[in-house]
C-alpha cells in the first residue's frame, strides 16, 4: 500500500506508530484527549506532561531536536516529529496517520 506523505518535520524521537489525530491548542482542551491518540499541537511546555504521557505520538508546529517535546518524547519512548510548521493546520481531528519519528515523516493511512 502506498503511503501518502502529508507532512515533514524534524525527526525528534524514533519509532513508528499509527493512530488518530487529536489537535490540542491549549491546556483547557486536555480533557478531550484520550490515551493512544496522536497529539498534534503548536508547542508543548511542562504543563503538557500529563497529556504527552498518554499520547501514542506527538507532532508539533514548532521546536527543534532539543526542544521540550523532543526531549520528553525521547525519554517516554514515544515517536515525535517537531518543527513541522503547519501540522495544526494540515491535519484534521480523527484523521488516521502514520508517524515515523526517526525520519520526521507523517503519512496518511
Amino acid at each position, binding site marked *: 500500500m502506498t503511503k501518502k506523505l502529508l507532512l515533514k518535520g524534524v525527526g*525528534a*524521537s*524514533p*519509532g513508528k506508530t499509527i493512530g488518530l489525530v487529536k489537535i490540542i491548542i491549549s*491546556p483547557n482542551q486536555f480533557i478531550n484527549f484520550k490515551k493512544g491518540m496522536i497529539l498534534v499541537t*503548536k*508547542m508543548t*511546555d*511542562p*504543563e503538557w*506532561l*500529563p497529556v*504527552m*504521557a498518554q499520547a501514542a505520538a506527538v507532532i*508539533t508546529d*514548532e*521546536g*527543534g*531536536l*532539543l*526542544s*521540550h517535546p*523532543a*526531549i*520528553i518524547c*525521547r*525519554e*517516554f*519512548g514515544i515517536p515525535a516529529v*517537531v*518543527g513541522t510548521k503547519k501540522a495544526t493546520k494540515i491535519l484534521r481531528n480523527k484523521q488516521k496517520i502514520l508517524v515515523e519519528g*526517526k525520519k520526521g515523516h507523517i503519512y496518511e493511512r
Partner: protein
Amino acid sequence: MKDEKYSLRRMRRAIARSCIETDKFTQGTIWPIHPSYLARILSAPFAKDFNDDFQNLKKDIGLKALAKVFVHPSALWLIIMRTMPGLKIIGLKKEKRAIFAKDILRMIDFLMAGNIYCEDKKNIVWDNSQIDKIFNSNLLFSPKDNFPMLFGRLHADLMNFSQSVFWVTNCAHREIHGPYPCRWNNQAVNLVIREYFLLNPEDLVKDLRNFPLESLTTYSLYKPKVKFEFAVLNDYANDLPLSENLVAVGGQAKYLGELKKLKDEKLLTKLCQLLEKRNKEISERVNKLSEKEKAIGLIFRSYYLIKNMRKQFDKSWIPPKDLIEKVKKEGIQKALPPKGTTKQKAQRFLDLYDPRVGWEK
C-alpha cells in the same frame, strides 16, 4: 596532565558552535519567557553585579578556588552566555571582556573533564576505576517488566520538573554525562548518567518547602547501537528508542533525608507521581503569570545562578529592588533580536578570540 591550551581552544570552538547551533536545536517558543525579552533591562546590571563580585573574589581567592564555588561547570557556562553582551553594554573594553571570557573558561576547565557538554570533575566517570565503582555499588540491575518504561517516565518527569522550577536556566541545575563505553556481564554497553542535584530550591520556589526529594542520580546502560549527541549543554539527542535498548539501570535518590536505591517499583512510581503532581501545580501557575511576572521570575532565576558566589561576601542572591521596580514600571519589550546569519552569530563571540589576551601562550 591535561593540555590547558588545547582544552581552552576546544571550549571556544564549542561555545561558537553552540551560539550558531542553539537555534537549530531549540527552535520554537522558549518557555515560559524568552531571555531576549529582558536583554534591555537585565543584561547590563546582571553583568555588572557579576563582574564586580567576580573581580574581587578573583583577587582574594584566585580562579581555582572561585571555580569550586560554582561546583558545576554548567552554571559557569550559562553565566558566560548571559554576561558577555552585558559587559559590552556597560562599556567594558574589548580586551577586558576577552580576559573575562578567558577567566571563566579557565574556571570551567578546572571543573570539567573531557567533553564540555557533559563531563565534570566532581562526578567524574572518566576512567575505568570510576565505572567499576558504579558497577560494584550494587545499584544496577537488568530491568524487566515495567522497569524500562518506569525509568523513562522518571527521566521525563525529572527533565520536566527541572524546567518548571528553573525555566530557561534549568541546564545549570542538572547534568547528564556520557556515553561511556564499558562492559556489563561481558556485553558492550554505553553508560549514561543523569544527575538532578537541586530538586528542592525552596528559597526560589516557595511551593517546594518540605519537598521530600532533594536529589536523584540514575545510571543507564544502553546497547552501543544507540547513538547519543550532546549538541548543547546537558541536552542530548538519540537515534533509537531508549527503553527498548536499555541493558541495565539503577540509581539512588535523596528522599526524605535518606539515600534510597532505585530498585523498587513502588518507590519509583511514588517518585514519578510526586514529581508529576508538583510539576503540574508549578507549571500551571507559571502559565498563568503575566508577562511582567514572568520577567521578574526570570530575573530571580538569573541571580540564583550566582547565589554561591554572593554568599562569599555574605550578600543575598535576591536581585536588586530597582531592577524589579524597573520591570514593574516599564514592562518588557516583547521582541526577539533580528535573526543573524551564521557569520554574525559567530561574530558575537569574536571577543573570545582576541589575540591580545594570549590565548595561545
